[in-house]
């Protein structure tokens, strides 16, 4: 860990000003950032603690949706009465992640911005384009069991590891961002970036920008499922995860909002899946078609080959459960 400055501003404006300076980063729960600082993967000169700004509230939005403050703890969000009744998908996704102790500290903003678990990224004696642009990608040709199969680039094959954001992508939530005196709202589906040739960038945030909240649209009808596949039943990141909101109308699929975790550098949302599924009667053949479409451009990197069949099978299981058919 390098020596660093620590400040704890009382206002959002001040925080945003402070983080605009070079190599200053926001600190929320610290469960990801501090770990990475100990390993010297992150070497910020200044930490700007967001915990005194008052962004932890969870409030009704005027349109019937819900606004979750950036500093609301993952636990607070997961147990919130309205989250549980109207967005159970979100609650389940959060509860499937990490451990109780970590969720008590982890926050909405921090969770969205958590960095990849690629072990070449976290080992500073290995090459990594994300940590050190231009140094090469250690995972390519290495142990890439947990790495991405969709949207990868020749520079980086890392995954975004989180669960919460996968649910938010299925729910089509928005990330509220303040910085440089202005505000913008970005769909979660567009918040994280693909690695391309700039893998050092995880998401659209610019220096000086701070996430203030996530807003959920008014609740929609349909069954909500979060399925996380992993070898041990808790305290493990997803090999593959599927977030689904599926509604049926007279035996046909009327809504199919799907997002996937563990497959890409971002929660993966493919709008073509809804187009394919809506209006159709559920069947094994249909689910298979959906999987083929989803995985059309999938590319494995050695050991993560298994993610392709596993995604196919998990998607089938989730759709079968959602549409109540037996496979």
């Amino acid at each position, binding site marked *: 860990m390098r020596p660093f400055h620590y400040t704890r501003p009382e206002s959002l404006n001040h925080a945003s000003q402070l983080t605009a300076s070079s190599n200053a980063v926001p600190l929320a729960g610290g469960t990801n950032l501090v770990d990475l600082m100990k390993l010297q993967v992150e070497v910020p000169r200044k930490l700007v603690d967001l915990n005194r700004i008052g962004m932890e509230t969870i409030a009704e939005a005027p349109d019937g949706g819900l606004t979750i403050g950036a500093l609301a703890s993952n636990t607070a969000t997961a147990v919130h009465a309205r989250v549980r009744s109207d967005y159970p998908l979100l609650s389940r996704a959060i509860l499937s992640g990490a451990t109780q102790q970590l969720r008590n500290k982890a926050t909405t903003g921090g969770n969205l911005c958590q960095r990849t678990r690629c072990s070449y990224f976290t080992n500073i*004696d290995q090459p990594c384009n994300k940590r050190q642009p231009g140094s090469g990608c250690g995972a390519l040709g290495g*142990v890439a*069991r947990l790495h991405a199969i969709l949207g990868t680039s020749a520079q980086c094959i890392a995954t975004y590891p989180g669960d919460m954001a996968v649910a938010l992508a299925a729910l089509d939530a928005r990330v509220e961002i303040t910085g440089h005196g202005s505000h913008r709202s970005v769909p979660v589906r567009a918040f994280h970036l693909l690695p391309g040739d700039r893998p050092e960038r995880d998401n659209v945030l610019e220096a000086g920008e701070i996430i203030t909240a996530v807003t959920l649209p008014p609740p929609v009808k349909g069954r909500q499922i979060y399925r996380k*596949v992993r070898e041990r039943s808790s305290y493990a990141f997803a090999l593959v995860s599927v977030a689904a909101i599926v509604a049926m109308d007279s035996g046909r699929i009327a809504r199919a909002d799907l997002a996937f975790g563990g497959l890409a550098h971002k929660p993966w949302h493919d709008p073509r899946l809804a187009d394919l599924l809506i209006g159709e009667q559920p069947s094994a053949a249909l689910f298979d078609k959906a999987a083929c479409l989803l995985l059309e451009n999938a590319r494995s990197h050695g050991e993560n080959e298994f993610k392709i*069949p596993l995604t196919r*099978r998990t998607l089938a*299981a989730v759709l079968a459960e959602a549409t109540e058919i037996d496979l």
Partner: protein
Amino acid sequence: MTGQFTQDAPETECLLDSMRQDVIGKPLVRIDALAKATGTATYAAEYPVKDCLEGVLVTAPFARGRITGIDIDTCLACDGVVAVIDNEKLIARCAQGTAGEAPVQEVRKVAYWGQPFALVVAETFEQARDASKHLKITIQDDDLSDIPCDPQAVEPENQQYSSQGDLPHAMTEAPHSVDAKFTTAGHASAAMEPHAAIAQWDGQTLTVHASLQMLNYNISELADAVGLEENQVRIVSRFVGGGFGSKLGISAETVAASLAAMQLKRPVRVAMSRQQVFQCVMRRSETSQRMRLAAGKDGTLQGFGHEALVSNLPDEQFAEPVLQSSEFLYAGDNRLLTLDLARVHRMTAGSVRAPGEAVGMPTLEVAMDMLAEACSIDPVELRLKNIPDRHPMKGTPFSSHKLAECLQQGAEAFGWDSGLRKPRQRREGEWWIGTGMASAARVHNIAKAKARVTLNPDGTALVESDMTDLGTGTYTILGQIAGEMLGLDPSNVLVDLGDTRLPRGPGSGGSWGAASIASAVYVACKAIREKLTKYANVTEGELNLKDGGVEGGASFAQLLGDKELREEGHYEPGDIEDDYVAAGFGAYFAEVRVNAFTGETRVNRMTGAFGFGRVLNERTARSQCQGGMVWSIGAALTEALHFDPRDGHLVNCDLAEYHVPVNRDVPELEVIMVEERDPAASPIQAKGIGELGMCGGAAAIANAIYNACGARVRDFPITPDRVVACMPD
């Protein structure tokens, strides 16, 4: 005064059975439990030491080559840095269990990725850690393409070869046979407490608070490494937060802290980071194995072959003893057992809980399941049929043998259905449900041990030894032994362990701790009793002690006045080790569910029945069995070290990425202790129990997965991807 006992023949009579205090075997709570639960037990790094400097180990970021120069100036210029220790006495590898001498000390000759080569010492830990990243080295690394990191790619050395009859012939002749290949992944001990030490040097004596398992050997290893006489070294290790083999021998932190303290004349603390613990202490070797079983129509074994390939660093003697229990567990006249060792550049391979059986038994027991299916015999029946009367090659008798009872009692408690078994018979929603079983076997080890016991006239006693307690309950059982023998409530027995100033114990390792040290305490107590007979004017047979004195008679105060009785007990295994095969036996039964879509496996319930001689404390023995069964779940489903094939570095080196089972993976574990006495195992008729719980359990789970969904996975751990790949659709 000393009581001496060398066991050359079975001890059929044991005083513990005729004593009156009635505390042996009782489920006493560990006496240190509260201190541990409340955080008041002091672990190695936690001793408050004034003026203590902090050291951080620096490790090599390459797997093979030479460090030709270390530029310490940038590092020394960092805030707070006091020194960089890069002297030639630092150790490059950890010592193997029972080595008793320094391990390889050529730190500049790098043999594996993550090998420690220097220590940065600073006023604070943070300063040392930061500065350690500024240490510049020049290296001459060998051609990367030339680094053997893959055991399959090197020409192995044969370590063990034994053959009897003609196995290949038996295989072709037998009506039923199994010929299957397996792999098991490397394992880490993953003890909760990282390796840590605080060293102090007063110009004459080196005192080290360390986290070590076998102080009796560690003192020689440390003295040898730093160039002192043993009488100049004191090691204290009162509490150890788990070792599982990784703390059998000394590791880099203990030596580095000592050298730094001696050079700087100030106390120095060194604690490994979690990543360093994974990268530079003992690993269990990965294995590849071939099992060949040939059986008659009725399942009687005619041929038995077990061949294994394991790995280690160049120059290391240790080869994971995969075949250890295969030698004697089942009958079969035609036998072939071979063990090969590949030299690779991964960190030292050594003992991790149940070395050998932990990975040898699961493969054997899956092969037995395959054979049962081939013969259409109930797998429990197949095992019962093949229990040999004597060692199948040497002809030596077993000291005691409870496999049959364990199989029967386990099957009954579990509700084992002995009907014809077929996979994919039970489905609940998305989940296939199945059951499986396996035998357990683990060789019994025992070691020489000394302990000192003092009986005080006030009705208290003191037990002393440099024995360690790894959290297993050693403190508690020694209080029970002395209490039983001397007629004292165990709460009146003070047990003082983990300090090399005390008599040499056996150390904790290889499951030998309890039986060995308890035997020494037993011998010492016997000597005290002998003296007491004189004070009480009775014979040994008439000396009934209870609650601080003679039962219904004089108290110790009345008997002894103000005189205390002190005896050392010396116990040695003796010739008996060659006359008998001594082993713990058992059986596991597991029910699992396997997700038909995702291949995820969860254990629904598990029963283990074990016979391991006398039970000294029902609660701590049960905990050991359960702990072993938890390890079985890890070995079956999740635990694997992943090495980068190009540079040999360990990829998953923390507890988030190396997956030991979590609470939710572990169902209710039923433990049946099949009580027995083993007169040849030790004078107290007890055997080891620390490892037996994980010697085959992974196979019960693997066999249950097969029974559930039809996926016969032969690569451990059985992760979802492997299940999916083998699952018939």
